C-alpha cells in the first residue's frame, strides 16, 4: 500500500470515526451524570435526521436555520425522555432502565416508519460539493464538516465543563451526587440538561450523516459502534470517547482495505477485546476507587 492510499484511508477512517465519536460522546455525557446507559442514543440520530427533513421539506427552512432548530427540538425530546421515562424508574435495577431506553429507541424508529416508511429521503446541505485536493489526498467537504463539527463539540464541551458554573455542577454530580446535592446543586436539573445535551449531539450526528448517506429509519444504526468507541475510550472520559471513535473508524477502514469487506467488522472487535484484556477500563478510563 502506497503512502498516498494510506493517507486517503486515514481521512476516510477519521471521517467515519468522527460520527462514532459523536455517538460515543452522547452516550458518555448522560452516563456520567445519571449513571444510565441510553440505548436509544442511535435513534436520537434518526430523530435528528427526520426532524431536519420535516423542517426542510415541510417548512422550507434553509439548512443553517434548520440545524439549530433541530438541535433545540431534539434537546427538548431529551428533556422529556429524562423526565417521563428515566427519572421515574431511576431507582430500578440498571438493567431495567437500560431496557426502558431501548424501548424508547424502538418507539422512535417505529413512529418514523409509520410516517415515512423505509423510503430513502435525501437532505441537501450547502457544504456538499466537489472534493478538495490536498496533494494526493482528496477531501470530501461533507466529511471535513463532520470532523470539524466533532472537534468543535469536544472543544465546546471541554470549555463548558471547565469554565461555566453549570458545567462544574455537572462534573460535581458526575463525581458524587449526594455531595453535590448537599452543596446545593440541583441534581435533577443536571440530569435533565445532560440528557438534553446528549439528545442534541445525537441529532447533530444524524444531520451530518443525512446529506452523505440519505435518510432511512436505519440511519441511527450506530449505537453498537458508539458503544464500542465509548468502551475503548473508557466510558467516563469525553476525550476518550472521541479517541475511541476515531480509532474505531481507522481500524474499520484499514481492516476493510487489508482484509476485505468481510473482515471490516471482525478486526476492530478483535482489537477491542485485546485492548480490554490489556486495559479493562479502556484506554482513558480509570477504575473506581472507594474509600472503606
Amino acid at each position, binding site marked *: 500500500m502506497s503512502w498516498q*492510499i494510506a493517507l*486517503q*484511508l486515514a481521512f*476516510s477512517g477519521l*471521517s*467515519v470515526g468522527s460520527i462514532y465519536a459523536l455517538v460515543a460522546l452522547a452516550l458518555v455525557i448522560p452516563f456520567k451524570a445519571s449513571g444510565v446507559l441510553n440505548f436509544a442514543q442511535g435513534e436520537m440520530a434518526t430523530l435528528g435526521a427526520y426532524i431536519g427533513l420535516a423542517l426542510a421539506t415541510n417548512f422550507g427552512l434553509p439548512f443553517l436555520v434548520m440545524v439549530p432548530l433541530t438541535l433545540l427540538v431534539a434537546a427538548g425530546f431529551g428533556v422529556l425522555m429524562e423526565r417521563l421515562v428515566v427519572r421515574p424508574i431511576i431507582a430500578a435495577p440498571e438493567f431495567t432502565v437500560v431496557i426502558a431506553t431501548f424501548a424508547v429507541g424502538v418507539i422512535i424508529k417505529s413512529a418514523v*416508519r409509520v410516517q*415515512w*416508511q*423505509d*423510503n*430513502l*429521503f*435525501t437532505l441537501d446541505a450547502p457544504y456538499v460539493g466537489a*472534493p478538495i485536493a490536498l496533494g494526493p489526498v*482528496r477531501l*470530501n467537504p461533507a466529511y471535513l464538516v463532520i470532523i470539524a463539527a466533532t472537534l468543535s463539540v469536544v472543544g465546546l464541551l471541554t470549555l463548558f465543563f471547565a469554565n461555566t458554573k453549570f458545567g462544574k455542577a455537572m462534573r460535581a454530580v458526575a463525581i458524587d451526587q449526594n455531595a453535590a446535592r448537599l452543596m446545593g446543586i440541583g441534581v435533577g436539573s443536571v440530569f435533565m440538561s445532560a440528557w438534553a445535551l446528549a439528545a442534541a449531539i445525537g441529532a447533530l450526528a444524524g444531520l451530518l450523516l443525512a446529506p*452523505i*448517506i*440519505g435518510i*432511512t*429509519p*436505519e440511519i441511527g*444504526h450506530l449505537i453498537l459502534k458508539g458503544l464500542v468507541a465509548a468502551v475503548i475510550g473508557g466510558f467516563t472520559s469525553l476525550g476518550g470517547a472521541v479517541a475511541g471513535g476515531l480509532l474505531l473508524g481507522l481500524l474499520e*477502514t*484499514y481492516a*476493510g*482495505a487489508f482484509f*476485505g*469487506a*468481510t473482515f*471490516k*467488522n471482525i478486526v476492530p472487535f478483535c482489537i477491542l477485546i485485546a485492548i480490554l484484556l490489556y486495559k479493562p477500563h479502556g484506554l482513558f478510563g480509570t477504575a473506581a476507587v472507594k474509600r472503606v
Partner: protein
Amino acid sequence: MLGRKPIILMALAALGLSLTAARAEQGVTNDTITIGAFGPITGPAAYIGLGGRDGMNLAVKQINAAGGINGRKLQIAFEDDTHSPTRALAAVKKLIDQDQVFALFCVAGSNATVGTIDFVKEKGRVMYVSFASAPPVTWPFSRNLFRGGTTEVPRYGEMYAEFVADYFKGKKVAIMNGREEYPKNEGNALEKYLQSWFSITPVKRAEFNIGDKDFTPQLLEIRSAAPDVIAFFGNPAEAAIALRQAKELDVKARIFVGTTMVDQNFLAAAKENAEGVAGFALTPLLPGSPHADMKAWEAKWKAEYPNLPVGRPNIFDILAYTDMYAFAEGLKRAGKDLTTDKLIGALETFAGYRSGPLATPLTFTKKHHIGNLRLQPMQVKGGQWEQLSWEGKRPSEILKRYE
C-alpha cells in the same frame, strides 16, 4: 322414521357436498381469491418491497373496481420479509398454512426469495415472482414457479457482458458487488460471460456488505487496477455513495450498474454523480419518462400515494403493477372453476403477452417459466435515464438448457 327416498336424497346431497369440498381450492371462495404476497418493507432493501407492495395494491384496487376476476374480488395477505431468507420462509409458511392463500405473489428480492423455493415447490402452490432474478426460481424447472418482469441472472450476464464489451469497449473491467444473493449473482454472471464470450478477465473484483456507507478501501483497490469500466451491483443507496466517492478519489472509468439501479430511486440518491452511468431497464418505460402512457400512470399512482418521496414510484412499483395485471390475466384465463392446475395451464398460454403499455412482453411455455428475456439499455443524460439504440447481437443461450 325416514323412508328410503329421503335417505337416498340426503346421501346424494352429502356426496355432492363432499365432492365440492374435495374440489375447492384453498383461498378461493365464491366471492374472493386470496393471494399471499411478501417482500421487504423494512430494512436496507425496503425500496424493493415498498414499491412492490404499493404497485401491486394499486393494480388489485383497479382490478377489483373493474369487477374482479370472473366475479371474484382479489384479496391480498402481505408479509414483510425484511430481505431475509429465513423471514421470507416464515412468511410463506404462514401465508400457505395459516392464511390458506390460493397462490403467492412474490415482490421480494433474490436474497429472500431463495429461502422460500424448496417449501413452495413442496407445497405445489403457484408462486409468481415479480423481481427476483436468482436462478433457482426458474432453474431447475418447476411447474408451479413463474418469473414475471425480471429475468434470470444468466440472461443479465449475457446482456451485461455484450454491452460492456461492445458499447463501452471495455477491455479492463472491474466488478464491485454486494455480498448478498442478487448483486453477487449479477457479478458472477457478468464475469462468466465476459470470460466465455469475450475472453475478458476482470482486472479486479471487490465486494462490500449491504448497508455499507464507506467504499474507500474497495475503490482504492479498484483504482490501482486502472479499469476502463466499473460494473457496480448493489442497492441504489450504496451505489450513490460509491459513485460520489469514486469521483472524489479520481477514479476514471465508465460506470455500469445493475438493473435495480436503472430507476428514479438511484437518480434521486446519486444526483449529479449518476451522469453517464449506463445499465439495463426491465420495463419499456421508466418512472419520470415524459411518455404520455407513463405520465397517465404516474398521475393515477400519485393520486393513490400522494405523500411519498422523490424516487417513488420506482421500477418496482411498475413491475409489481404490471405483473399483478399479468397474474390476474392468468387467473381470468383459468376460468371460473379456479384450480392450481388450471392457473398454471393458463399462464403457460402467455406468448409475448403484455398487460399494458408499461409492461414488458411475457412468455411462459411448458418447458420454461422465464417470462421476460428483454432488457432495454439506458444511460443517464442530463439527469434522466434515456434509452440507447444499442442492441445486443448475440443470441441468448439460456433457453437451450430447458430444451
